[in-house]
């Protein structure tokens, strides 16, 4: 269960805005400071651990740079909810263990709204309005990967299982 305040963005937020290319040669602490600054200049400074990004359609379009979800995770965001995602951002976020949740009603969530997200159930409760919103179900193999903390954790588990299987033989 995730609870956090909503940071609301519009449609087609691209990854150049989330993680500017000219800063990618530097460590995450540096490029994360400039995350989405052209859209909401106070975002990186004011975001609190647990907060949730709410986007419109095609969130994370453009470059496939994993530093985009990485910057959000570094700043403490607990999830990204959007009407739809660019496929590269979606895969990257899930791969690093940052839940990317598709919700057609994302547009009804106001800036600063307190949201309670139950990923397994696929439900978002808006604690300010009392409304609940249904999310698109996460495919089983991705849910399992998220529970392992992302693709690396998932691979580690798989490799361990393979190793012990080999040892038992």
């Amino acid at each position, binding site marked *: 269960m995730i609870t956090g305040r909503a940071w609301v963005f519009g449609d087609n937020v691209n990854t150049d805005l989330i993680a500017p290319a*000219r800063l990618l040669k530097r460590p995450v602490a540096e490029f994360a400071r400039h995350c989405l600054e052209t859209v909401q200049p106070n975002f990186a400074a004011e975001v609190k651990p647990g907060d949730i990004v709410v986007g419109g359609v095609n969130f994370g379009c453009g470059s496939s740079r994993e530093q985009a979800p990485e910057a959000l995770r570094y700043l403490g965001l607990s999830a990204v909810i959007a009407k739809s995602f660019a496929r590269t951002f979606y895969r*990257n976020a899930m791969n690093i263990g940052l839940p990317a949740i598709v919700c057609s009603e994302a547009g009804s969530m106001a800036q600063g709204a307190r949201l309670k997200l139950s990923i397994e159930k696929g439900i978002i409760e808006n604690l300010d309005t009392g409304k609940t919103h249904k999310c698109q179900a996460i495919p089983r193999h991705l849910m399992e990967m998220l529970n392992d903390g992302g693709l690396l954790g998932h691979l580690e588990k798989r490799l361990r299982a393979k190793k012990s299987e080999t040892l038992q033989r």
Partner: protein
Amino acid sequence: MPLTLAEKLIAEAASRASVEPDEIVTCRVDLAMMHDLQGPRRVGPMLEKLGAPIWNLDRVVVVSDHNAPAIDTDTAGILDFTRKWVQAAGIKHFYDMQGISHVLLPERGHLRPGMFVVGGDSHSPTGGAVGAFVIGVGSTEVCGVLVTGEIWVRVPHSILADWSGILQHGVAAKDMMLKMCAALPMEACDYRVIEHRGDAIRALPMGERLTLCNMSPELGAKTSLIAPDEITVRYLADVGVHVEDADRWQSDPAAEYERTLNFDAAALEPQIAAPSSPSNSADVNDYQNVSIHQAYIGACTGAKLSDLHMAAEVLRGRRVAAGVRFLIAPASQRTTVEAAQDGTLATLTEAGAILLPTGCGACAGMGAGTLAAGEVCISSTARNYKGRMGDYTSEVYLGSAYSVAAAAVAGRIVDPRDFVQ
């Protein structure tokens, strides 16, 4: 069951007789590509943490293009790390400052019809122009592929882009793609595959086909495809890849597409994308008289030999306008060599163009040609998002190499058809 080309390619990689849209399947990867910015420096430590070997060293290509050549100690360090990692890991295919990955893969004979390829960069679909299924992913996903040799995909629906007629002289594949960006919402092709077909496509040389497929992520597409034909087979033979199964990698005549988009290439006007999105594209006439500070020909999208030829055709016997910088960063070292041999570079530089090193350069504001506050640039690259090529207040217009060169001569955006015979 009739299948689209995309479905055939995925079925082959998944060892299945057929697949259906929206199914999730695991595919065997024939080739994995990563570059200096997102590859070894990020993937290397992950592999180390997992303690797992690379599944197949013959099937991995590493390219140093994003930070090449180094412009400061950060980028020099990244290139140095990449070289040392490649050597320690035993990577067999490494291109160090030889060009941009998406252009190198076909140029150096790494692609063929029927392959399933994963690239650690969003413009990887460029390779779809030869009839391979090529998708872009992030670093952790590349790591997963390097360890397992596999990747999951949701089988995409296919969209058919049917291009009738033949392009007018002075109109290029870039204009075709910008027209699609104008005609469709940015997310219109999310998770889908665009298959290009028709008289205009059959007439396109390989360089132009690569441009067309290169920009499919700008519409959200998973990838883009052009079924192999005589032009594909001849191009690949020239780079040492002999294809005998081109007939196999065609959509079935009765294959179902989610939708068909019809375009008349003969009626297509040169297109210009205004700041700050490729979807702000319109006929060049809508942007006549926009003055520019810089014209840039570069990147995987717009600096292949075919693009340099377009620019040279416009510049022959003309001069770059006073007060305009015309920068050209050829997409590969081989492009530079060929353009030197056939006189193209002489034409360009005599007209006042400045030749830059091969590499990703100013396209993402990382190398030579980055823009200052308030500057206006017309560029043959793929993206013009806010701040993409430099300062957040700089403005980038996108166009074909014809349009970029014509603007360099005029000092403002103009119809390039007035500059070619």
